[in-house]
């Protein structure tokens, strides 16, 4: 089953009087349970692609379907709601809410979804336990290391029970031990819960773990390889 499908997805913008093609007629499908790395040099269109399939950026042309729903038709408010219910985000710089504890950060997404307190409480503890952060439930982001913050971010991304998780260079700010730890957790969630992960990355350690590697260059798919 296709979780995501793009049809002739293009994104153009002007930069210093030059037309830049960030994405050029990208048509691709992602299946449930894939662990995909999107690689390519800087400016190849990785982040633009993630933003487009995540409903954060509107394409210049083409269509994006999430489980056969065309999200390119939705307005900004509908997209916010769509993201909340369907997509988990993991950012390069973690982006946790600084005034909330680890547990509250995870609960926050569920609160936005209108989930009752008792369930929020139970699920947030379970999720933080699954990413090895049960001991740091009540710590705020500034009391956690980068690796710990990113693990909380992964737990937060999963809190809404999304259809897939988009991670934009999630290991870029992590040391090798934290990177390995984070990848173990995401691998485990991918295998045990069949969660779909799509990364943009330069990191060889992430690429090595992926079961599909898509290489982008100048906004076009250069290669699409199933590794395992």
């Amino acid at each position: 089953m296709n979780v995501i499908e793009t049809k002739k997805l293009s994104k153009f913008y002007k930069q210093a009087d030059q037309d830049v093609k960030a994405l050029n007629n990208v048509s691709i499908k992602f299946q449930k349970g894939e662990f995909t790395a999107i690689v390519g040099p800087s400016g190849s269109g990785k982040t633009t692609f993630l933003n487009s399939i995540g409903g954060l950026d509107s394409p210049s042309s083409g269509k994006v379907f999430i489980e056969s729903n065309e999200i390119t038709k939705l307005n900004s408010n509908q997209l916010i709601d769509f993201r909340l219910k369907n997509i988990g985000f993991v950012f390069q710089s973690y982006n946790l809410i600084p005034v909330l504890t680890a547990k509250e950060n995870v609960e926050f997404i569920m609160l936005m979804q209108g989930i009752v307190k008792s369930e929020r409480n139970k699920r947030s503890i379970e999720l933080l336990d699954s990413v090895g952060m049960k001991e740091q439930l009540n710590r705020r982001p500034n009391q956690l290391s980068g690796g710990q913050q990113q693990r909380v971010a992964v737990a937060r991304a999963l809190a809404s029970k999304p259809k897939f998780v988009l991670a934009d260079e999630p290991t870029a700010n992590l040391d090798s031990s934290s990177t390995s730890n984070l990848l173990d957790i995401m691998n485990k969630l991918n295998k045990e819960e069949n969660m779909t992960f799509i990364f943009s990355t330069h990191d060889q350690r992430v690429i090595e773990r992926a079961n599909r590697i898509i290489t982008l260059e100048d906004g076009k798919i250069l290669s699409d390889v199933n590794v395992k």
Partner: protein
Amino acid sequence: MLIKIAWRNVWRNKRRSFITIVAIFIAVFLAIILRSLQLGMYDNMINNVVGSYTGYIQLHSKGYWEDKTIDNAFEFDQATLLNIQKIDGIASILKRVQTGALSSYKDLSKFVYINGIELDKEQRLTDWNKRLIDGKLLTNDSKSIIVAKGIAKYFNLKIGDTLIFIGQGYHGMQAVGAYPVEGVIDMKNPSLNNYSVFMNLQTAQDFVSAYNLITNLIVDKEQYFDENKIVEEIKSNINTQYNDVMTWKEMTPELDQLIEADSAGGILIIMILYMIVSFGIFGTVLMMTQERFYEFGVLISIGMKKSKLIITLIIETIFLSFIGIMSGVIASTPIINYYHYNPLTLFGAGAEQLEAAGFEPIIPMMNTYDIALAHSLIIFCISIIICIYPIFIIWRLQPIKAMKR
């Protein structure tokens, strides 16, 4: 959780929040103190002139105020009087006969204003005990008079001396009488001191041959009660074809205008204060918005509705304002209460100036809750209006652009 986030966000930058709260505190504190002082002073001025003599509300026969002659006296029936007494906010009602007369003593003469009064009730309005500076007060059956200190000085009167009055009586009757002086009072107002003579209501009615008639019905109200509301209720109880009901503002417009003009100055100062504090709050909200632009982008990316983000920011602003407002109100309350019961006493030129204008040289602070409430609400509304800026910013925010900054 939105409230929790808002509360914690307030304390993210403690120094900035503290400065904003202090700015709001100072504005509210000064506004309340300044206004209580001003309104307290006006209330005292009104009490000096209005509360102690003209009354807050007067009822006359139609046309009396334009032509104050005894021929415009009227009979007020007891049933209507009892109905009026039941109206909310009325402290007391007293009858008067007021008429002009020529007074003479030895080889001096002078125009005076004779007031026939109900002694017991008048005591409650004017506090005669405190104003008596010589002799004694009238009794219900006394046929003597009390004169204001300006008249006593003009004629060089002593207690027991007799003044002769000649005036116009009711419907062409001649009004002539000789009355011994029983006391001298200070009306605390130069004009009233120069012209006021007081006698029993019955004695005055006999003097002008206006038996059972009065010229003025004085209505005294409870403190801080709206006189316009009372006037409306009185009007619904009387026949307005024959009687006029007037508030003190209509009877003494010069005092009202003096207060209005002075009050405008005070309001201007408070407006400047508000403007300063508005910019203070706006500065904070501006910084709060700008420095968290990236964070807003993230929150919207992960699925926070813009409306909820706006609500969080509004709650943050409300928290800041509320803390500042409450501290201002709490700090000003004991000061206001103290100076309400222990008024500031003026000395020197300032005191002389007030006394010359007919007012007591004291400034009590007005301790009504509505001053604090009004200024708190104004600051609160300013804060809410300032929130339009972040609302506008968030409403137009595109998460990708916000996260690229």
